[in-house]
């Protein structure tokens, strides 16, 4: 479908109304975040950023994302490979299971981990005996983040691998390539952009998770507060400028995510056009 310059008045009306909706729902909120973060001036902004609790929250958030992203990439490749390369019983069920975290309230996800690892449960007691703290500590935050982010890389890779088909890989097998070689030389180069895209999306979700993390975090200042939890905490304490400073950091990550996503779609489109021209 080619896009066209709008011609009639009613087409312009459609566009104007659409832009107005976008202004109210998307542009103004984004502008408001930064305006509130800067509302008390630069020096307050810098001071808010250098507070110990802010630094700690940034550290914990980055740490969680840094661990969740690679784990999700490995899991995504494994599951996408096995549901698109083989026809076996239970394949559809496996694909539905991947979607569970999508459809579930994050608070319920947190509750599941509380029911498994909380201090009054069997596993929780055992961990307590070994002096390992999971709930109300960073391992719990990491685990629920892994739960919530697990579908993204998989959902991006599955349709792509399905569309690409298996011809190249079968050719590699018939030439005697090992499974590892096929993965690293044939499959991965074909999906590297999608993997990067998956990493970007997973990172955005890992950084921003709120509901699940708030159940298992215990919200202890300087210990278990991630950036989104800090936003809520500061907002509840009526420290609006500080709350929006943390929010602005998260908004920057969101904008970066959108830019990277658009860039990758652009590259993908260019490649497709080149391929079509080559034919």
């Amino acid at each position, binding site marked *: *479908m080619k*896009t066209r*310059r*709008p011609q009639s008045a009613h*087409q312009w009306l459609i566009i104007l109304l*659409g*832009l107005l909706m*976008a202004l109210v*729902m*998307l542009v*103004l*909120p*984004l502008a408001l975040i930064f305006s509130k973060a800067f509302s008390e001036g630069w020096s307050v902004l810098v001071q808010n950023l250098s507070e110990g609790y802010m630094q700690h929250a940034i550290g914990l958030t980055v740490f969680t994302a840094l661990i969740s992203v690679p784990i999700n990439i*490995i*899991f995504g*490749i*494994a*599951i996408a490979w*096995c549901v698109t390369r*083989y*026809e*076996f*019983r239970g394949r*559809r069920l*496996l694909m*539905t299971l*991947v979607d*569970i975290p*999508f*459809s*579930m*309230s994050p608070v*319920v*996800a947190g*509750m*599941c981990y*509380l*029911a*498994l690892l*909380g201090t009054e449960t069997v596993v929780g007691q055992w961990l307590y005996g070994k002096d390992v703290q999971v709930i109300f500590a960073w391992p719990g935050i990491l685990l629920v983040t*892994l739960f919530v982010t*697990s579908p993204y890389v998989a959902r991006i890779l599955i349709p792509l691998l399905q569309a690409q088909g298996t011809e190249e890989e*079968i050719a590699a*097998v018939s030439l005697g390539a090992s499974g590892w070689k096929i*993965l690293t030389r044939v499959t991965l180069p074909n999906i590297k952009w999608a993997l990067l895209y998956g990493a970007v999306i997973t990172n*955005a979700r890992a950084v*921003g*998770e709120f*509901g699940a993390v708030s*159940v298992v975090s215990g919200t202890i200042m300087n210990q278990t507060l991630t*950036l*989104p939890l800090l936003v*809520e905490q500061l907002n509840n304490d009526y420290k*609006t400028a500080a709350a929006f400073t943390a*929010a602005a950091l998260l*908004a920057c990550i*969101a904008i970066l*995510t*959108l830019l990277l*996503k658009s860039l990758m779609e652009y590259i993908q489109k260019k490649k497709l056009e080149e391929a079509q021209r080559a034919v």
Partner: protein
Amino acid sequence: MSAFSFFKRPPVLPGFVPSFGFAVLYLSLIILIPLAALLLYVSDMSWAQYWRAISDARVLQSYKVTIQGALYSTVIVSVMGFWWAWMITRYDFPGRRILDALMDLPFALPTAVAGITLSALFVSNGWLGQFLEPYGIKISYAFPGLVLAMVFTSIPFIVRSVQPVLEDLDEGYEEAANTLGATRWQTFSKVVFPAVLPALISGSSQAFIRSLGEFGAVIMIAGNIPFETEVTSLMIFVRLQEFETGAATAIASVVLVTSLALLFLLHMLQARLARR
């Protein structure tokens, strides 16, 4: 080959065991065992205890608020999302690329941030709230705010479901309809809309399921007034803070079973729509 062989087609490529093994192990550890733990925890409760926890008047009201909010927001976001997808795929206007990129903002922006921002925007002295206040329209800290938050977080589900279908739609059909004398409205309702409908249904269902579970954005704007704007996810949280872990888990199990049922329904619906 026996009728009950595991593979429906013998595998050609190597690597089934490691990929399948790792995927199943990971899914079990991260998703299935915690889910089972929640259900096991609940099964320890007596039926009377369980029933009291999930049918408390305040909790019942929260189910109603959540379902109502999700229904209203799904209808609103379906119209808005379709509108945007239509604009982006049909017309060339200044800012088109930026608008296209912005459609994913609700997905990339943490829900808690979305919540405090929309709330600050529509509060009675906020940038937009100040214009609504004289008319007595209250959005932040009221039910409309809850719906607004759900609309915001659902935007990408509709747009990204409908957009690819609109893009692939063959212009020939519309031109044919025009040449045959169809009015613009007839072309839209008889040619374009039926083609997009399966994608719209799928996107709306995802938006609805997502809205039922939305937490971060909603609690920041809804004001969380008992019996009025408390969603079920929040009720779980309230019970936790009252150190009623059993009651919290019981309510969570209701939400869990509902969302699993909806997920399976959605997958069946999508499979059926794909076959048509």
